């Protein structure tokens, strides 16, 4: 039976006019006892009557918005109501610091700050916005990497995606924006603070990827998970998607349940911060459109510097280089000592160049002949893999109405295999 709200029926308890007319929602049966005596009503009703005056208008609006959660009417809200966003100085300052367009309302930014672990209701948390933002972010990062570095190996592409738009990078970005976190989520928290909970579950932002049938064995027995299968099954960063154990209906997921580790992340603060960044991108897409979201991503995420050459780690670079030359029909690579000094001293330096016929492919130096050879092979392979045709356009440039015709991007044959 629906709980009777006396404030909607009787105006003598209200000192300000309600936002909506009192008996607007259909027929209500008024019990004789509640009308006559407030003292006989349950205690939670009495508490609400005492704080009727200024919050009554807000409560009316909030009541319509939270019509789906009847059991929690008398409990405090898990997050501040959206109307409070207009009164937060922190939130307005954050909005201006990011130079967000005036098309994006403050309530949207406030919603972007609420993690699903703070408020599970999807109409009030940033889960949906963060999903859209994550998809856009991964799209723009991947198209930039693939057009600017067409020969990158898949493992490096995954790592570079993480380096630009993974959780750690987005966490740094959110901190650089001056986003502070509330100590604990709640209704009384300033709407300009990032709200998340350390013990409740948050959401996973995966647009692409499937749960493998052998995911349990991979985790438990450390089965091999090859790169080709990662392209098919895993998410945009090459990480495995684990099977989500659904919590029982109506109950929050148990933290102490060790089987329920899928929804819990290592670093909750980093996860909440990265969800906020994604949610901001999602909000910009929603209110300002595709081009503004792309400009924002380029300005805040892709303008950062990541040295791709530092991501490589080779196992047998000399063999790989020999296979590369064979595949490309170059002459077999030959290593030649270009110069050396201090061979019998404590600090020798050998400079080795790798030649294919008369052309030098690359050179490197090291403290011993073997080290110099390996260094030269690695540098040669990096110069192959990190080839860049320059800043050619990305596919999303063609979405504009006045775009020039798309010139096909360079597509590489693939990685070197034995």
């Amino acid at each position, binding site marked *: 039976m629906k709980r009777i709200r006396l404030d909607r029926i009787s105006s003598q308890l209200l000192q300000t006019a309600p936002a909506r007319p009192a008996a607007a929602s259909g027929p209500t049966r008024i019990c004789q006892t509640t009308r006559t005596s407030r003292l006989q009503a349950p205690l939670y009703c009495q508490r609400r009557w005492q704080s009727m005056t200024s919050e009554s208008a807000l409560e009316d609006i909030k009541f319509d918005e939270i019509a789906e959660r009847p059991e929690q009417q008398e409990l405090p809200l898990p997050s501040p109501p959206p109307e409070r966003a207009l009164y937060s100085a922190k939130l307005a300052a954050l909005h*201006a610091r990011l130079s967000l367009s005036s098309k994006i309302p403050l309530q949207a930014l406030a919603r972007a700050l609420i993690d699903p672990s703070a408020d599970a209701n999807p109409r009030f948390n940033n889960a949906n916005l963060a999903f859209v933002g994550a998809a856009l972010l991964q799209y723009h990062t991947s198209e930039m990497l693939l057009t600017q570095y067409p020969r990158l190996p898949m493992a490096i592409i995954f790592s570079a995606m993480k380096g630009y738009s993974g959780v750690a990078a987005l966490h740094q970005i959110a901190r650089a924006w001056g986003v502070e976190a509330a100590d604990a989520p709640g209704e009384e928290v300033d709407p300009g603070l990032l709200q998340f909970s350390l013990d409740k579950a948050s959401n996973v932002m995966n647009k692409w990827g499937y749960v493998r049938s052998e995911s349990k064995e991979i985790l438990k027995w450390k089965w091999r998970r090859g790169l080709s299968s990662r392209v098919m099954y895993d998410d945009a960063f090459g990480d495995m998607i684990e099977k989500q154990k659904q919590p029982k209906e109506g109950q929050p997921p148990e933290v102490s349940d060790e089987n329920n580790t899928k929804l819990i992340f290592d670093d909750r603060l980093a996860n909440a911060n990265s969800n906020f960044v994604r949610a901001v991108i999602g909000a910009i897409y929603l209110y300002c459109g595709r081009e503004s979201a792309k400009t924002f991503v380029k300005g805040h995420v892709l303008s950062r510097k*990541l040295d791709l050459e530092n991501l490589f780690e080779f196992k047998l670079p000399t063999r790989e280089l020999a296979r590369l030359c064979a595949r490309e029909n170059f002459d077999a690579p030959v290593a030649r000592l270009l110069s050396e000094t201090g061979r019998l001293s404590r600090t020798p330096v050998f400079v080795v160049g790798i030649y294919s016929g008369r052309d030098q492919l690359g050179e490197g130096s090291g403290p011993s002949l073997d080290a110099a050879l390996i260094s030269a092979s690695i540098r040669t392979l990096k110069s192959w893999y990190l080839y860049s045709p320059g800043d050619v356009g990305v596919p999303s440039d063609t979405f504009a109405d006045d775009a020039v015709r798309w010139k096909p991007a360079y597509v590489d044959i693939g*990685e070197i295999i034995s």
Partner: protein
Amino acid sequence: MTIKALEKVSVGQNGIGAFILQCRKIDVHYCDYSGSSRGMNSFIKSQLSKFAASNPQIEFAVSPRPRKHPVLIGHYINGKQNSICVKNMDSLQILNKMQLLRNASGEKNKKLNKPVTSINDSVRGVWSPYHGTGMPV
């Protein structure tokens, strides 16, 4: 034969791409009783709202601090704070101090010995004794 990938995080430089003002909050403390706060009180009445309107990125918190000198405290994104005591100052002098706080980053003042500070490699490369004409002995 496989290539293993190491994980690294990208490095951001404020201003390349988007710019974020480093001053995120300024606390303005005044006193209704003490004489040293007269300039501050007139500053709050005359200059503060215009300054705050022209700097929407900064959160301003105005609060009384009874029987203490007036002070401006700037909070920065790197977590550091800078406070300036503005006792016995004129409202325009206080405005100057506030602009100082707004223009600062939270870092300590460092002496720059070199003309160029960069995270990029040098454009012309570093001299090597093993290449070119080398180092004749």
